[in-house]
């Protein structure tokens, strides 16, 4: 008897699953691949909250984009590639854009999304050479890439040493994955150019075990340490650096290694730690006021609402804003509010976030202006350095937004993307 029930139940669920997948969706669908669980959750949660709050605010304040409501179904990936693939397959129908928030999943989706005609927007992460729109039609990684990031960090170090870093030692502590390995080639090329010595220190997933790494740093005494970390790895690294009394102002993280969650556990020890960023921290922006008014005050904040205004929350706002803006641009280009995924891609390619437009959107001085084009999917390439003040528990911007070493970066991008194009037999566009 029980077996029969079980069988009936199974058949019913199978039918239900397939009918669910066939279900057509109206509105504009922005599926979210999030990770609120696992080793990367401390960084995944604030970022996802930023996204959701922004979408909710647009739905409440403007009634959606051009009258079309935003749907934002969440799919929990736990930062796992295989689950990411499942989430993608489940949500890809009529999806405007995917924001995988993981370099591994981005690499996974690049060929799939290109074949399916779905836009992938990896904001300042993922495959750096995707900045070359001639090869990567559906992939965008504006406003800045890891290779820009690496050269901006080196530029900052150069400035502090009055342009001469010959013989200095720079260590790179990196997540031993595609993500962490991204900057190595740029840093090696720059090492030849500027004459510094590069020390490579990989940290294995999830990044809790770093004793050996920091012992090496204590012995080799590098002048500067750069970090490409994510999740719990950041916290452990900053704590370890503090415990070996490494001068924190010489410790610079990428923009994914510079949130409140990363520095708070180290307490006063983290004072002076620097990281790159492409958006400002804080809550003094029009967009925050709107979110407060339309979302938080109505008790609809995503999560517990405690991440409001943190670095990664603000980055989520920025990412969501670009995605929404792309839809608005697409609606304008094609003269219809009901855009298809293919029209959305055109919108993303023609995004032009000038200072004026940013102000209109409530992001005045929040991030440097940038625009995409057919050739350039990588945005402006601008990032600034922020520094942690452990006493006031605040990030402070200490430099202007600056460019990386575009001679080096552009050459590497052209090299890598043409290699990919040859491998995958892709003809260049935009000619």
């Amino acid at each position, binding site marked *: 008897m029980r*077996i029969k029930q079980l069988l009936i139940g199974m058949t019913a*669920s199978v039918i*239900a*699953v*397939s009918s*669910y*997948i066939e279900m057509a969706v109206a509105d504009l669908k922005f599926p979210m691949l*999030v990770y*609120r*669980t696992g080793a990367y959750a401390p960084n995944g949660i604030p970022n996802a909250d930023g996204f959701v709050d922004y979408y909710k605010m647009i739905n409440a304040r403007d009634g959606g984009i051009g009258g079309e409501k935003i749907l934002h179904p*969440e*799919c*929990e990936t*736990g930062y*796992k*590639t*295989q*689950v990411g*693939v*499942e989430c993608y*397959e*489940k949500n*890809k129908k009529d999806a405007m854009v995917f924001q995988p928030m993981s*370099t*591994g999943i981005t*690499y*996974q989706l*690049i*060929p*799939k999304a*290109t*074949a399916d005609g779905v836009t992938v927007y990896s904001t300042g992460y993922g*495959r750096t050479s995707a900045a070359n729109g001639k090869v990567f039609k559906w992939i965008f990684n504006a406003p800045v890439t890891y290779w820009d990031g690496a050269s901006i960090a080196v530029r900052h170090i150069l400035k502090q040493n009055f342009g001469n870093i010959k013989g200095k030692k720079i260590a790179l502590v990196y997540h*031993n*994955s*595609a993500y962490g*390995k*991204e900057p*190595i*080639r740029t840093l090696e090329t720059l090492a030849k150019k500027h004459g510094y010595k590069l020390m490579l220190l990989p940290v*294995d*997933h999830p990044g809790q075990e770093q004793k050996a790494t920091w012992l090496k740093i204590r012995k080799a005494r590098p002048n500067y340490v750069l970090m490409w970390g994510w999740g719990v790895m950041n916290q452990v690294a900053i704590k370890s650096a503090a415990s070996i009394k490494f001068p924190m102002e010489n410790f610079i993280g990428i923009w994914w290694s510079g949130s409140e969650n990363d520095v708070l556990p180290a307490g006063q020890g983290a004072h002076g730690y620097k990281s790159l960023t492409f958006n400002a921290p804080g809550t003094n922006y029009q967009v925050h006021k709107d979110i407060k008014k339309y979302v938080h005050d109505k008790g609809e904040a995503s999560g517990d609402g405690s991440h409001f205004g943190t670095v990664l929350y603000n980055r989520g706002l920025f990412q969501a804003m670009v995605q929404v803006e792309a839809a608005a641009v697409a609606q304008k280009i094609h003269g219809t509010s009901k855009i298809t995924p293919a029209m959305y891609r055109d919108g993303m390619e023609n995004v032009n976030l000038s200072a004026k437009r940013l102000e209109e959107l409530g992001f005045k001085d929040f991030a440097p202006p940038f625009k995409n084009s057919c050739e350039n999917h990588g945005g402006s390439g601008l990032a600034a350095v922020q520094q942690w003040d452990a006493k006031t528990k605040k990030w402070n911007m200490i430099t202007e937004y600056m460019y990386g070493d575009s001679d080096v970066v552009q050459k590497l991008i052209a090299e*890598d993307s043409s290699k990919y194009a040859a*491998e*995958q037999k892709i003809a260049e566009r935009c000619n």
Partner: protein
Amino acid sequence: MIYKETGQYKSSYKSDHAIFPLLQDKIAFSTLMFVAFLIIPFVINSYWEKAILVPFLIFSLAAIGLNILTGYCGQVSLGTGGFMAVGAFSTYKIMTYFPDMNIMIIILISGLITAAVGIIFGLPSLRIKGFYLAVATLASQFFLVWLFNKVPWFYNYSDTGQITVSERTMFGIPVTGAEAPSYATYLFCLVLVVLLSFAAKNLIRSKMGRSWMAIRDMDIAAEIIGVPPLKTKLSAFAISSFYIGIAGALYFAVFLGAIEVTESFDIMTISFPVLFMIIIGGLGSMLGSFLGAAFVVTLPIGLKFLMVDMVGLSAVTAKHFEITIWGLLMIVFLIVEPHGLARLWSIAKEKLRRWPFPY
């Protein structure tokens, strides 16, 4: 009634030794094959392919491999992820060196390479047993993953350490790469799985399989009656690794397409789940390998579907529930039915035999 064997006479040794001696089983199996080969390819969509069927087939193969070693020969192994990585990276290297070679041949060669690696890591099994062997295979897991991440030759000096599959065809239809249609990847995996499962099933019933089981049940007694431990254990390691290597090759080439070794072949993503598959499915059972793989692959997706899409819980709450339910089920299974799903199936068969007049 349903499983009545009355009246089914065997008049030759051949029919008595058939894999499915009962008529009912034969019918059920043929129906299954009919559905798998002639119906599913026409109705499959990319969600069913990428999320359920292809991973199920690939993990079934890995589970069969591990079941040969652990279930039939009694050698505990935690190195599945490492061996699958060997299969994946062999496929990648052969693919890039011989761009014109047929993908089926590449995958079989990758299996053979993994078998050779398996023999090397199987050598300690002659000296150490049980938990100690588990630790030794665990070392192989970490060593192999480290090796593929450390030595750039394996990933052709790419900047990120990622390996990416290029398009390969069978009979003119792409089976690897992003353009491959769902039915093609599914059928490709299905053909390999069906052929290799038959091979495994027959191997287990051969002299070799019986000597594996003799070693498993009591190695000293087996040695005394003339089963050579060296040959037997190493053959189990070799054949098990062959299957796992092919699973790894398919996992890379057909299923994911782009792989990063530390993430995709991690002990928590491969080695433990595959071990759970054979424990839940049933140690020393072919059917168990399939049931276990189906259970482990579909349970998270099923739970997610039930909780998020039907009940409407948020994705993260559902995930927390899923982790809890998963842990609970493992404990319940080990207490209530330590012999796994395969045993449940044979109990069900017994019941069906007497139904509707149980005594």
